[in-house]
């Protein structure tokens, strides 16, 4: 379980981004989490609820966009949705498939409250 260290790193990075963009309070963080990223979304949410209030304030919300595991067959170029982690092309049976999406853990964007405006 390394979701706590993931969330700690997330909070550090968004604090830095907020600081270099005027320092407004962080209202929203959008995170893309791939199915094959190695982190559990529910555990990320738990860790966020636990750690965020102290670090970036109670107003901050986390929105997770789940990304399914997708691949492309190197043999026939077919695009494939991988289920049950069977890395095999359903069209030509080739196992030469390359992951094209689903292993990401990416900060998409953050929303900052405009400085000088009260909530």
């Amino acid at each position, binding site marked *: 379980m390394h979701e706590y*260290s993931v969330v700690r790193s997330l909070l550090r990075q968004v604090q830095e981004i907020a600081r270099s963009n005027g320092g407004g309070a962080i209202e929203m963080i959008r995170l893309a989490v791939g199915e094959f990223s*190695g982190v559990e979304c529910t555990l990320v949410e738990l860790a966020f609820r636990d750690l965020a209030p102290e670090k970036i304030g109670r107003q901050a919300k986390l929105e997770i966009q789940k990304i399914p595991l997708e691949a492309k067959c190197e043999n026939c170029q077919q695009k494939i949705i991988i289920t049950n982690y069977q890395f095999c092309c359903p069209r030509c049976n080739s*196992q030469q498939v390359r992951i094209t999406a689903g292993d990401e853990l990416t900060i998409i*964007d953050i929303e900052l409250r405009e400085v000088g405006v009260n909530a």
Partner: protein
Amino acid sequence: MNQTITVNRDLKADLKEQANRFRQRMSDQGTLVVNLVSSPGAGKTSLLQRTATKIGDEYRLAVLVGDLATDRDAERLKPYVPVQQLTTGGACHLEIPLVESGYERLNQSDLDILFIENVGNLVCPASHDLGEHLRVTLLSVTEGDDKPGKYPKMFRTSQAMVITKSDLLPYVPFDVSSAVEDARRIQPELDFLTTSSQTLAGVDEWCEFLVRQLRKIQK
């Protein structure tokens, strides 16, 4: 009105860059880096002892040992090979900053093979690039042959699987070929070896495998 800042940044970008720099540096100096992962008790330390006994005179080896809190594994290895302990303070995996600082403490720039003995865990270490050239998953026959399908990311990101404790095969319901089949559905190019640190079966083949990988780095 809120202000939206577009970021589109990989959360682990800094760690990935550091891992790539470390790997390049090790390649440039001809050091093969091998990251050993497994469940707790699969026999990483024993296999490293046998490896050091077998090829430690001919090749310059060193081990970075990740451990949650104790230094027991490091102590077991010290008589065989230079060791640095990496204490994770309870974390379930190693990260590249810890590995790189452990490597600096070894103070040896002429290594042939640097082993990283990861924390016993088949989940979290799968998501952390330690700058290795080779990720090897150990699977002991007492764990069951259905492990690969349960830990797909670890097997997908490994280049080799070593089935350990093969001396126990007559006593446990472990089918080597079905474990390999299961793993290769996830990672078709996976190499596999079978070893026993008790009888030393397969240890020669394992060492030959390592030396072949080393030749690719030192070409």
